[in-house]
């Protein structure tokens, strides 16, 4: 039987790829033979691995560093901090107060908050985050909604139940349950019907009356004034936010950002239009940290996200 012997020095030569043809042949024969010592092979290649040296350019790094620390930015920084505090105070007063003016009743939720209310007529409403619902004491079935809410309407055939959105979309219901999403910064206003029957009309945006039956979805596109009706996807939760989920199907990132802002309370600014227009499909629990959601989205589309501590907003690039 043939015997093969290999020195560490030869093995090192082989692993560091500087061996000549005859050494390579010798080592490979040894590896195929019964004399092959796997432990030794692993040891030498581990040494090779661990001794690898990166050779970054210190000079380039230094240049970059001084370029970024030298500009006079100290004054601006401290001023921005005060501006952020001011904004926070204004935002705070705005969102936490329930305002009574004239005979108007306003119910609102802040970032990440959900809230259930019951109207005098017995109708139940669940408000999603960052939502404002208002009505006049005398007409508690005529509501104005900014944000998103789910309605379970008490039956009253004499008094129609209507929800009007900031873009003058009006949803009229008898006894029924439905969801309206009408965030001002979203490009769409959406109505989803679960039970009963509703009508979607508008005094200013379009002439048609859209009569919805259960599982219908009516989406109004603000920029083109187009109305699209479709069936809800029954495989996904129909009103995801009520189950503590953030769900989106083939939605643009800028529209998803509307929900993320309502949930997590920070503005999201897009510095790249391409990424803002990218469509995503996904489902997350509302307890998922926002940076984790971003990180997962980067798997299908490469972008960077960074929290600007001074302006307290996420920058997407």
């Amino acid at each position: 039987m043939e015997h093969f012997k290999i020195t560490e020095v030869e093995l090192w030569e082989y692993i560091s790829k500087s061996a000549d043809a005859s050494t390579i042949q010798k080592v490979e024969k040894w590896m195929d033979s019964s004399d092959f010592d796997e432990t030794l092979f692993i040891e030498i290649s581990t040494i090779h691995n661990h001794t690898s040296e990166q050779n970054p350019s210190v000079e380039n790094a230094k240049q970059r560093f001084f370029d970024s620390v030298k500009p006079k930015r100290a004054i601006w920084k401290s001023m921005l901090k005060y501006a952020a505090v001011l904004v926070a105070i204004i935002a705070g007063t705005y969102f936490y107060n329930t305002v009574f003016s004239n005979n108007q009743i306003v119910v609102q939720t802040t970032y990440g908050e959900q809230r259930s209310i019951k109207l005098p007529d017995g109708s139940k409403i669940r408000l999603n985050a960052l939502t404002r619902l208002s009505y006049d004491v005398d007409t508690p079935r005529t509501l104005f909604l900014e944000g998103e809410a789910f309605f379970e309407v008490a039956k009253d055939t004499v008094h129609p139940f209507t929800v009007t959105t900031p873009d003058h979309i009006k949803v009229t219901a008898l006894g029924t349950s439905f969801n309206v999403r009408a965030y001002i910064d979203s490009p769409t206003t959406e109505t989803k019907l679960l039970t009963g029957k509703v009508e979607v009309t508008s005094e200013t945006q379009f002439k048609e009356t859209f009569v919805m039956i259960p599982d219908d979805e009516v989406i109004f596109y603000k920029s083109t004034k187009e109305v699209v009706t479709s069936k809800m996807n029954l495989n996904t939760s129909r009103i995801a936010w009520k189950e503590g989920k953030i769900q989106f199907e083939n939605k643009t990132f800028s529209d998803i950002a509307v929900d993320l802002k309502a949930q997590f309370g920070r503005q999201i600014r897009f510095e790249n239009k391409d990424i803002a227009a990218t469509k995503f499909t996904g489902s997350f629990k509302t307890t998922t940290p926002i940076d984790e959601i971003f990180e997962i989205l980067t798997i299908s589309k490469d972008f960077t996200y960074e929290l600007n501590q001074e302006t307290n907003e996420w920058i997407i690039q």
Partner: protein
Amino acid sequence: MNKKITSNSAKEVRFSNLFDRHYRRLYAYVFKVLKEPDLSEELVQETFIKLWENFDTINDSERSIESFLIVTLKNKMIDAYRKKQTREKHTNLYASNTSVEAQIDRQWELIQRIEDIYATLEQKTVDIFKLSRDKGLTYKEISRQKNISIKTVELHISKALVVFKKGLKDYF
């Protein structure tokens, strides 16, 4: 009041020296963990910027500056590493259970261990070993460059390997 560097130009000279002393090592550290050159460069940059911004509050000794750099960088690495793990978790790839921090600490120990090993070797052995490892030169090329026999080159390599084998035995 302790005397702090107040003029910007003195601070720049100081930082230039700090870069020369620490940059490669810190870079090697991040790279070992994250294996991404651009990200490694970015994190070390951010670390130095943080030092620049907090320079007045740090005790002006070489030791506390070094530990500030390492701690800052380590936190940035943990953050970046977690992001990486999140991605792997959601794409159903391998996600390790050992703590991020333990893994990162181990890499730092390894870097120091290797520095220590190099320190115990003769300078001549280190030079020859590095010509083989970093420059990828053949024994013949090294012998010509150093004007020594191939046998001597092999002897130095063998010496280095023996010491590395012993020194890194916990890492095999």
